[in-house]
């Protein structure tokens, strides 16, 4: 065989050896420096999407799928027919991160109904009309359109004694309220006949007023 052909084969040999070594070494390095993200959605038909700050979004599976990623914080979503659930997950090297996306819910503008209320029904025990409970929820939503949870401590509810000699149908209640983990002292003035309503929120440290819903005049009642 000519020396030229021998040289070509030798060159191919070197290239193949180098390529093979590179394939194996790069695979080892990748496995040591990346992590696996495994996502499961309750909806087996939901498209699983991964994205990151200042990065494109990518569909990597449906229902249940895994993906290898560089370490970092990622946003994952499960999306199907207009409904979507998202979460932030962290990927670590040499580690498999499992994430379960809860049942999908429609993502829409916040609403009064979308807020979680705990303890508000306690006001009914003090004779407050249920219509005023709706006004309280509206006032809180007016305070912040971004709220997710409201918690009233039933033990903190303190009605102002009503003057029996007065013809006024207005009552006042002091209480402590937590809005998205932030605590406030609150005063609520309302008409027992379901008319006017007004909510004040105060900072518990400084007693400074942080919110005044303004007087509302609502016809009707219970």
């Amino acid at each position: 065989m000519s020396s030229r052909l021998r040289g070509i084969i030798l060159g191919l040999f070197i290239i193949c050896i180098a390529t093979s070594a590179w394939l194996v070494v790069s695979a080892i390095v990748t496995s040591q420096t990346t992590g696996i993200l495994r996502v499961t959605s309750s909806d087996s038909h939901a498209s699983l999407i991964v994205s990151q700050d200042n990065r494109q979004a990518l569909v990597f599976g449906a229902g249940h799928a895994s993906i290898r990623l560089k370490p970092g914080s990622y946003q994952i979503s499960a999306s199907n027919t207009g409904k979507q659930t998202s979460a932030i997950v962290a990927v670590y090297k040499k580690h498999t991160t499992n994430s379960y996306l809860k049942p999908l819910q429609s993502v829409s503008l916040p609403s009064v109904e979308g807020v979680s209320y705990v303890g508000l029904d306690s006001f009914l025990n003090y004779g407050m009309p249920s219509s005023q409970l709706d006004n309280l929820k509206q006032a809180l939503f007016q305070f912040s359109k971004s709220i997710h949870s409201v918690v009233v401590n039933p033990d903190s509810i303190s009605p102002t004694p009503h003057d029996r000699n007065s013809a006024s149908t207005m009552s006042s209640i002091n209480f402590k309220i937590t809005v998205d983990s932030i605590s406030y002292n609150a005063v609520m003035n309302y008409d027992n006949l379901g008319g006017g309503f007004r909510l004040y929120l105060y900072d518990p440290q400084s007693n400074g007023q942080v919110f005044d819903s303004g007087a509302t005049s609502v016809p009707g009642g219970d």
Partner: protein
Amino acid sequence: MNAKQAFTRILFLLILLVASLFAKHVILGGMYLTSLKAAPPLAGSIAPSLASAGSKNTLPQAGKDFKILKVNYFDNQQWAVVLVAHIPDMNSATLLLQKLNGVYAVVLGPGTTFPASTAQSMPSDVAAYLMSKGLL
């Protein structure tokens, strides 16, 4: 070296290459590294809302399928109004995003106008901005 030896060596090299590829597949567990391409802020949050109904496996890509023209943040970046344009016709639309549990989600849009009643469900400064742009 005769032809038979040359063939044997070439065959060995091919087997070596195939074995290396197989080894890579085994080492990585069949999952190769996925890198997300660079994109403007919020592109990843917006793309699913711009996807057409039939495209379940692909999402529009910023810079290729759509372009983010403008982003306005409100209320400590809890809300964002984003103006996007479709490539190549450059038809524009607006989306409203809200930060929920640390993640921006599209709560309104994409659209060119929205019902005035939606103003009640967003902060007043966001509503005022959308009104000033003729979107509400």
